[in-house]
């Protein structure tokens, strides 16, 4: 699996994701307002913003689960703006690994079966490979446990294994640490660091300044517009401990820093 991961991570600086003038309009409300964004292959980007700022809308559009009202979304060189629902499902299946705040596991399947579900809809279930993915997030021993027998942190790690199993072009995480305690937050962030070092492209939507600060770059959204684009200078050669990060200051977030 590790070898294949490398095959989908770019060593060059090509843009894996480009948003050009993307807006999402609900009647009078502009959830996203003329957003431009470029994400390079292998980049770790955090999207921050208060509730209602358009974070989830942006994630849904990038993840092919919603369509932009205006503008273009180019994912891995493909304009997905005009694609049909069926085609978007294929794009999601082939190019995107999704991680959710509430974990969302199939409660009647074991941990390894939850990972295999993504394989099943992508190509062919392979239990051995699914076990390797669980091993990578440190849960091989819990492979036969049901979600109800796993802690929140363990469930989220299963979801990360599921998101990685099909070697996606982008790992898209929506508030991945939102329901976790500090210890498990560190575990998840540490997995992201390892994936980043292996060349995975990671986009994390979060409202946690510390989680945003450990990313390479932080995008701040307000009222559907990108108001800040902050480059974080982090050392990814050693394990991350969120306690060591103070997070982004209000001044930085408000564009005054």
């Amino acid at each position, binding site marked *: 699996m590790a070898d294949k991961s490398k095959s989908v991570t770019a060593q060059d600086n090509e843009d894996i994701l480009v948003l050009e003038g993307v807006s999402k309009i609900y009647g009078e409300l502009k959830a996203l307002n003329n957003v431009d964004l470029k994400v390079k292959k292998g980049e770790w980007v955090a999207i921050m913003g208060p509730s209602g700022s358009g974070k*989830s809308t942006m994630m*849904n559009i990038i993840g092919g*689960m*919603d369509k932009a009202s205006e503008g273009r979304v180019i994912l891995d060189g493909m304009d997905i703006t005009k694609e049909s629902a069926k085609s978007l499902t294929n794009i*999601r*299946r082939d190019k995107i690994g999704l991680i959710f705040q509430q974990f969302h596991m199939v409660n009647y*399947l074991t941990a390894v079966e939850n990972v295999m*579900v993504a394989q099943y*809809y992508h190509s062919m279930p392979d239990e051995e490979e699914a076990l390797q993915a669980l091993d990578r997030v440190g849960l091989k021993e819990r492979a036969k446990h049901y979600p109800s027998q796993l802690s929140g942190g363990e469930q989220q790690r299963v979801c990360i294994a599921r998101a990685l199993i099909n070697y996606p072009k982008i790992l898209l995480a929506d508030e991945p640490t939102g329901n976790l305690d500090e210890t498990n937050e560190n575990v998840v962030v540490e997995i992201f660091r390892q994936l980043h070092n292996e060349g995975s492209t990671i986009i994390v939507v979060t409202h946690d300044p510390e989680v945003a600060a450990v990313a390479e770059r932080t995008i701040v959204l307000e009222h559907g517009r990108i108001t800040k684009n902050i480059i974080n200078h982090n050392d990814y050669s050693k394990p991350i401990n969120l306690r060591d990060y103070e997070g982004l200051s209000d001044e930085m977030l408000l564009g005054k820093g």
Partner: protein
Amino acid sequence: MFFRMIRGTFTKQLGKMLLIAFTIALGASLATAMINVMMDVGNKVNAELKTYGANITVSPKGASILSDLYGVEEGTGDDEFLSEEALPKLKTIFWSYNIVDFTPYLKGRVTLDESDVMLVGTWFDHHMETPSGESLDTGMREMKTWWDIEGEWLTDDDDDECMVGIGAAQKYGIAAGDTITVNKGGSSAEYTVKAVFDTGSDEDDYIYTTLKAAQELFGRQGLISSIEVSALTTPDNELSKRAAQDPQSLSAADWETWYCTAYVSAICYQIEEAIPDCSAKAIRQVADSEGAILEKIQLLMILITALALIGSALGIMNLVAASVMERSQEIGLLKAVGAHDIQVIGLVLTEIMLTAVLGGVLGYIAGMGLAQIIGMTVFSSSIAITPVSMPLVAVLVLCVALIGSIPAIRMLVKMNPTEVLHSN
């Protein structure tokens, strides 16, 4: 993986699936019971109606023509006769098993107290072996069960006894236990009145005795003037009505269909084939009533079956829709990780269909039991389970499950995976 998911649904959502199976089983059991009762109700109702009399009369061809042309009552004693020996032939026709009872009559006018009165010789409890080896007990006691008898029924050995209709009994002042003397030409016979009967019809003016006694009195040994036949028949339709008018006008295929169906006209035709020089005619009023009653009962049962299945479909609609709503996160997740609508629909439908099979099998078994309860309660006899009911119920159950799943499938198709992702 697909079957792991199916297995997972059944193990983790057993209660819900059992509830759906139970709903399907309810519909299937009613459908099974109704279909089987409906298939067998013709025989049951016919058998029931047979207790109210015969539905075919057989008379000599000449007598029948006189009756048709001049309205002359056949079998007055002075016209054509049939041979008593021909009677067993009734049980040799194609639909012999549908002939449940028959009795011969020899009728003639006799003098009683210087008045004319109709004397009828017949079978009361006649035992016979048919040419096919069947043992049969037939006669008036079986065919005239509604007669109100004061005294005792005659038996076929009571050649010196008779039964007198209440009209004649009142006219001549006869009571059970009396002895009467009747004259015919130069011969006379003395009978002890064993019973006085009340039928509410013309027969109340008749005197009944055994066939043998009547034949001796009339000097017509081995002869009969008519036969009443009680047969199980299929309700008439357009084909049978056409055939009744002229069987030869039918095409070969229609003729075969008609001949091999227990229409009253087909049975009459076969009786005429079996007994030479006779004319068999349906007592149209009885046959028509049977057909009309059967049609109404069958229509009622079709309605009950349809209502049961509609009720079942509505129940399934609610349960499956509730199940899909409850599993919306799971379904949204599957779509989010790349499952197409058709794949999710396939998953949900497979679950429902497997549940339907379970419910259908249980319902079919329960339905067979229910059919027997209905049979015993209503007809006091068991209902024959028709093999065709099984595939019929299977198709109905799967259709109902499919129709019941439509709202859930529509909901499922409309479901957007962003609902799963939403986490502001």
